[in-house]
């Protein structure tokens, strides 16, 4: 064997090389005492080596200065990675025989190219076969079980967790149009036994959506009416509709019959449109929904906040009584945001801008927010682009009388109270606007869980929490009890929180940017004794779209679409006692939870 020629250093070069190597190692503390002593002696005698060592040290400081310039990863990195992990897991499930066997991906990471080639060739051959076969099957056509309409069953495994639940969704079908689907779940699988139950059974319902591109679709509690907002450049954009939902299997939906006798918070405008042939009613026009849309628990009312479509002001609170012709705007301060229903009352929040000191001769700058619905458009005299801070306050509204009860505690934003009336989740802190008060962002504060003090009935009052607006002079205590537990540490720009019906679990979604459509969904278990979240989190921040749904024994959410054309899936975490399990439906380009 012939070795390549290599120049041999003379002794002096070797000594300097050693000094250079030790100088380098010494910078990272990798010298023993003898080496350090030798190096010091050498440097005392070798100016050139000393200069080189100093240069190494200076370059090292320069390199370490890069620590002062942190590089932030993209906000969707976890969503992308999580989706990729899901796909890797799914692929593994496809190639691993049921019932165990050798675990996949054994062996070291660095498999040689040669070995990889033979495996790769085999995979390639299988892939080619799959492509040839799949080319004979129409694209995006799920294998349908003729009796249920669901995707064909996988073989059931042992010990699923029994969870009976239904999740209504709007989903893009094979032809790209939206389908309204009730997804019936019979059980979920423990995490150690994925796919132990058949996939959910689906029932499709034909709903006339006027050809609109709907958004903010919300289903009533009785599943007999949908509310939605036209969007996406359709003719219906800027309009809000309600449309009847037929009973499963019905040929055509019966139209909603407007009733003049139905109690309503206001008189509908005289030019309110009549129901369309499909039964849809245009209940508001020229507006954009801001935040949540929700039916009251008895389905008799729909509440939402909406702002003018031209973005000239912030939102007001609207109420729609089932069976009436139009929604009615019940606030005019352009700063009111619907939060949630609490029994038969609406919880809403409004912002009090912290207006800067008045400039001489400019009375508008000395005023508070325009509560008369006038022309200031929520700008509060500060439409100069400078950020303005705002303090939130929240209140209850009786939809029948529009009487308002202010919460006792200030700085409570978008509170959500559990249906049993024991706990409340809310943003505790301030808000900030950079557009003169039209839109508001979360500022300093935190998302918290607190006890809830319900309003005590007034002496002589029947049924309760009614007081004149504004609630000045009110002495009744209502609102958070003032012992909050932090739910999320760190950056929160947007959130949504909902309790389960028993008030034992709280699902909350948080996003780091207000424009993010993908955030992280958590499920916290509430310790009934302390009113604080338990340390265990059955769901700890999974990537999710904003709209999720929680019921007595399940939490449903939609996994975000990933990169490279990956699609969304409806995912359901179900529970029975202390057992939790999950099920995922087949992916589709678009999936929206509607209740």
């Amino acid at each position, binding site marked *: 064997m012939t070795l390549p020629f290599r120049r041999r250093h003379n002794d002096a070069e070797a000594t300097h090389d050693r000094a250079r190597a030790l100088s380098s190692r010494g910078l990272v503390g990798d010298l023993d005492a003898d080496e350090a002593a030798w190096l010091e002696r050498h440097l005392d005698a070798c100016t050139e080596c000393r200069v080189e060592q100093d240069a190494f040290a200076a370059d*090292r400081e320069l390199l370490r200065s890069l620590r002062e310039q942190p590089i932030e990863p993209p906000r969707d990195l976890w969503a992308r990675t999580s989706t990729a992990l899901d796909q890797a897991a799914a692929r593994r499930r496809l190639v691993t025989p049921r019932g165990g066997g050798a675990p996949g991906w054994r062996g070291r990471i660095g498999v040689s190219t040669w070995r990889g080639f033979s495996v790769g060739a085999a995979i390639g051959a299988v892939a080619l076969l799959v492509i040839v076969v799949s080319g004979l099957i129409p694209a995006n056509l799920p294998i349908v079980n003729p009796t249920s309409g669901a995707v064909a069953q996988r073989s059931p495994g042992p010990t699923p967790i029994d969870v009976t639940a239904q999740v209504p969704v709007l989903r893009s079908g094979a032809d790209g149009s939206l389908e309204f689907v009730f997804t019936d779940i019979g059980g979920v699988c423990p995490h150690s036994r994925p796919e132990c139950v058949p996939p959910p059974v689906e029932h499709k319902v034909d709903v006339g959506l006027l050809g609109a591109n709907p958004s903010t679709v919300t289903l009533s509690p009785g599943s007999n009416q949908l509310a939605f907002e036209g969007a996406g450049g359709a003719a219906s954009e800027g309009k809000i509709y309600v449309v009847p939902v037929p009973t499963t299997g019905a040929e055509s939906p019966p139209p909603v019959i407007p009733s003049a006798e139905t109690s309503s918070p206001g008189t509908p405008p005289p030019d309110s449109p009549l129901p369309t042939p499909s039964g849809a009613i245009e209940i508001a026009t020229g507006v954009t929904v801001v935040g949540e849309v929700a039916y009251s628990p008895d389905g008799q009312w729909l509440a939402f906040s909406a702002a003018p479509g031209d973005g000239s002001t912030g939102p007001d609170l609207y109420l729609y009584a089932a069976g009436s012709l139009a929604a009615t705007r019940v606030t005019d301060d352009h700063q009111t945001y619907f939060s949630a229903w609490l029994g038969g009352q609406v919880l809403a929040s409004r912002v009090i801008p912290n207006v800067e000191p008045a400039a001489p001769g400019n009375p508008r700058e000395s005023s508070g927010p325009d509560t008369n619905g006038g022309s200031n458009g929520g700008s509060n005299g500060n439409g100069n682009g400078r950020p303005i801070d705002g303090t939130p306050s929240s209140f209850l509204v009786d939809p029948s009388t529009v009487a308002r009860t202010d919460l006792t505690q200030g700085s409570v934003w978008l509170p959500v109270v559990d249906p049993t009336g024991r706990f409340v989740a809310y943003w505790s802190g301030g808000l900030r606007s950079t557009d003169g008060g039209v839109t508001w962002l979360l500022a300093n504060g935190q998302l918290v869980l607190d006890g809830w003090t319900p309003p005590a009935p007034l002496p002589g009052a029947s049924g309760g929490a009614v007081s004149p607006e504004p609630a000045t002079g009110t002495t009744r205590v209502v609102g958070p009890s003032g012992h909050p537990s932090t739910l999320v540490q760190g950056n929160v720009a947007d959130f949504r929180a909902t309790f389960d019906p028993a008030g034992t679990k709280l699902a909350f979604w948080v996003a780091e940017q207000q424009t993010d459509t993908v955030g992280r969904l958590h499920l916290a278990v509430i310790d009934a004794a302390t009113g604080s979240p338990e340390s265990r989190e059955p769901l700890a921040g999974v990537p999710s779209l904003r709209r999720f749904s929680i019921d007595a024994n399940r939490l449903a959410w939609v996994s975000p679409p990933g990169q490279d054309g990956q699609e969304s899936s409806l995912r359901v975490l179900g529970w029975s006692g202390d057992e939790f399990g999950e099920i995922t439906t087949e992916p589709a380009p678009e999936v929206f939870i509607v209740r």
Partner: protein
Amino acid sequence: MIRSWDQDEARVFVEGLFAKHHGEIYAYLVRMLRDGELAADLTQDAFVKAYKNYDTLEKDENARAWLYQIAHRVALDDIRRRKIVRMVPWTGESHGAAPSAERIAMELRLSGPLERALARIPERQRAALLLAELHDLSGLELAAAMGVSHVAARAILTRARESLRKALAVEKESERAAEDERDAMFAREARGGR
């Protein structure tokens, strides 16, 4: 001890790794590849590989170095495949017709003389410098992450310091030449304006 591969265990473990280390892995890959989007893709790949190869990690306390080893290999594989970055000094030109604000910010961040000098040196040397000096890997961790012996890792690091020193000198010389050129241009304009 070789651990068995359990899907849930692997998922939980990798989610924990991601929560703790995704920022530094991404930053390492950005500085190796000088491309934020590509670095994000490869960060994702690295965590998927960690998930798939969870059973090859012998001790949890080595997880960070193990993760860097995966990220390092992912980066070198990509560099070899794409033949990018190496010896191509940064010119400040964007890759697409309409670069995003994030890309512009990232490119600005990577356009300083030190980053340009790092881009000039061989990728294994660049990796050794970044891992040892920015990411604080010990000598043994550096060797493990780079997949070489401890002695070889020390040698690579020493050569990397020498290479960086020369590359910085070249960058400083280029900057001086550019300044001289600007001064000369201003002087010409000043004379022409009289």
